[in-house]
């Protein structure tokens, strides 16, 4: 007796995916094995480590604690969706690179999605808020010091990017000088 499959439509990183999955298929497994998006990692399957964290309609959730069928039609953002269209690193990713915020990289996708949402909701966190933002994710390699630094660096990079984008939009033909961008970022 083969198991019944349900059709699910997921909007992941701006693309539409249709999959036929059993009801018991965890979202983490559906993303990884049915959709081939292996950037989301599975560390514990009981919701504690946070490696599987993705954004569901923009909010961080543990994909190992969600059934794929339960989020039919909803939007999911995974780590793969944080990279810029042109393949360059987004501000949170770039901050991790600069601050050595990862070692083995296994927990990293969960941090990246969590922080992306965190900085969207609170673009200028205090040091305590930066620590609090990552307080639900486990890392065994880095000891967290550099991850906290990466949150703070990401905030700076994001503001610089926004300032640059805003200036381009506002000033039309005028291009922002390097100086302007640097000032916005400091």
């Amino acid at each position, binding site marked *: 007796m083969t198991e019944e499959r349900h059709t699910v439509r997921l909007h992941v990183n701006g693309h539409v995916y249709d999959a036929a999955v059993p009801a018991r298929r965890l979202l983490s497994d559906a993303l990884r094995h049915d959709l081939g998006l*292996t950037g989301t990692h599975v560390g514990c399957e009981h919701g504690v480590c946070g490696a599987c964290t993705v954004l569901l309609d923009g909010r961080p959730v543990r994909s190992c604690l969600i059934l794929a069928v339960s989020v039919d039609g909803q939007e999911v953002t995974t780590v793969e969706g944080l990279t810029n269209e042109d393949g360059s690193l987004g501000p949170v990713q770039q901050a991790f690179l600069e601050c050595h915020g990862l070692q*083995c990289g*296994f927990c990293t996708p969960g941090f990246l999605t969590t922080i992306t949402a965190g900085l969207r909701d609170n673009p200028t966190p205090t040091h305590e808020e930066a620590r609090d933002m990552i*307080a639900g994710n486990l890392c065994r390699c880095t000891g967290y010091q550099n991850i906290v630094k990466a949150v703070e660096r990401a905030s700076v990079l994001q503001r610089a990017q926004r300032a640059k984008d805003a200036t381009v939009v506002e000033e039309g033909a005028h291009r922002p000088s390097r100086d302007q961008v640097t000032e916005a970022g400091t």
Partner: protein
Amino acid sequence: MGQPVQRVEDQRFLRGQGKYVDDIAVGEHALHAAVLRSPHAHARILDIDVSDVLDLDGVHAVWTWDDLADLSAPMAEPLPLLIPHPTLINGRTQYALAKDEVNYMGEAIAFVVADDRYVAEDALARIRVDYELLTPVVGIAASRAAEHLVHEDVPGNVGARLEQENGDARAAIAQAPHTLTLDLDIERSSCQPMEGRGVVARWDADLNRLLAWSSTQTSTGVRAAIAVKLGLDLGQVDVITPDVGGGFGVKINHPWPEELLVPLAARALGRTVKYTEDRREHFIATAHERAQVQHIEVGFDDDGRLLGLNVEFWHDHGAYTPYGLIVPIITSTQLLGPYKPQSYRVVFESIYTNTVMVTPYRGAGRPQGCFAMERTMDAIAQYLGKDRTEVRAVNFIQPDEFPYDHGLIFQDGRELEYDSGDYPASLEKIKALVGWDEFPAYKAEMAAQGRQVGIGLACYVEGTGVGPYEGAHVHIETSGKVKVATGLTTQGQGHATVFAQLVADELGVRFEDVEVVTGDTRRMPYAVGTFASRAAVMSGSAIHLAAKRAKEKVLRIAADALEVDEKDLQIVDGVVSVKGLPEASIDLGTVSVLSNPLRYAFDEASKAATQFSVGDPGKPPVAEGDEPGLEGKDFYSPERATFASGMHAVIVETDPETAEITILKYAVVHDCGNLINPMVVEGQIHGGVAQGVGGALYERMAYDESGQLLNASFMDFLIPYVTEIPDGIAIDHLETPSPLNPLGIKGAGEAGVIPSAAVFASAIEDAEGFTIKAMPISPSELFHLRQSQEHR
């Protein structure tokens, strides 16, 4: 070298493009395996009924021990005992699938292969096993009492007894002006990398070859084991270590049953097969470490100088001994730390319990040794009314006493001889960094506010870069790109970046043009593995040497092509040129073309090379003793380990009412010789300290008397979040370069975690005013210790 270069591997990790073992063959309809594990700690297997299993849709195979001999005769034998030792007279290893009995909760009994992991687990639920329960032996006390045995044929549950001595410690203690006795206890813990174990295998029937990926710390070890157990030639097996989500030691043991069963299934079923352990399995079927009970006798003089140190300890190695006695041997030898006791005796018994087996966990026995010695130092200071740093200083090996031979045999079978270090300088640094001299005033100030604080210190020495060897292969391609391979593996240490830095330096190429591969037996089949903080020293040195060889050939060919003397040449950014004459140049890609006399010009590079002519037309194109191609290969095989060292200090606050323990300041002074990438080293220290905080204050294995592991999940095994780790760690470096390798480097991987139990015990003791003899410690335990003090 010496630069905080950003890591190349981050480019894929940050984009979610890392390839960890469970990411392999994702598009491919691989089959998935699951393992039935014993729910009992000790039982005889009377019967296994798998008759219902194959009826389940999507199940392809189910095996027990009975099936193994037909699949491959060597599979029916126990797994290898990797590191034998003459004193390990009662070593035991498990079978890939349990034969007649199970000796720990979690032991593998049956193996199922199905369309996916969900179905495979459904299949496990259909297997019925009849057990005859036996009395489990749990804990060191029960094992020593030996009312029941783990293995019927191992008397007293003793696997091995090993004694080493330098001088006559017992006599020295008997004659010493002062003596003390300590009884100490360290509980079991485990590595818990965020990624568990996993293996994928593919059998190619056309080529008659097996390809396997394993989340391991030793590709060559796994390769050899697979070949032997599957009855294949070594040359028929390739093993690749993919990206690995942390190891911390637990992935050095091999072969795990699944590392053999998965390739076996791939060959038998003609399909790619994958096994990924889940977190619960990692707890109950992978490996633990740390548990020891120690009895110390020490004799000392009025200054606290160690006249005699006599240490006996009991090491709980669990149900089996695949990794031999490495952990307790390391405890025995690294216990000495930076000190020179006038005489030293250490004896241990490595004993069986019906629990998960014990193999190295970051530190690999050093934390236990450091605990024993540092608790002793604190006890001596307390007894004599002296400052804890003074008592240590008086016992230090002095900078002018290197090399210092302790008269013992280390874990690599070689003499325990320290090559370099400066312990007095480290002590000055750590005291300044943590504010040691200012602390008493601070403590008094806090006390006036009703707050309880304490300061602790712990020193350690770490033998790193143990042999037998590592090798490297450097290949400069006709494109000018440099491809480097070394056979050991990577679990997050940034090897691809760090090793590329070394090649860039030695060869004179741009860092971006160097690509490093680790852990692929197809690229470098001679290797040992990543453990014991050896990768930078071993592979770093080998890569440096191999790059040197490649450079020698580059210069020889370039000199010939440019018709100049080798000593007039320099290599900068991948271009060889005459010093002071930049137009007389040839790029490395062209040199590479010239190194391989070709009949056919395939591309522009090879066409361009025809403008040069090398070699004497009167002699063979490939000279005798030479080889075509621009490659360098070399191995580094040191005579002994090189000794890194460090000191940690911590200030803690303990809540008088709730006994909660808060870390106020954590300081580290660290000496790992010359640094290749300071950013990477600092990251290792951060991670080690965090793991140490976990191990000292939060993490332990909680077994009940029936051998059930009560906390086999992250809910109850408490790995710290950022909130439990101090905000900022003060770090200072000392660099005493190693005289044993060309770059002067020492290992850094384990340092952060070695003194943790010792330093926290020291600080909590200072805060509370009573002795701490057992670690880890939780607020609940501290509360009870306080109660028992009051009842004195």
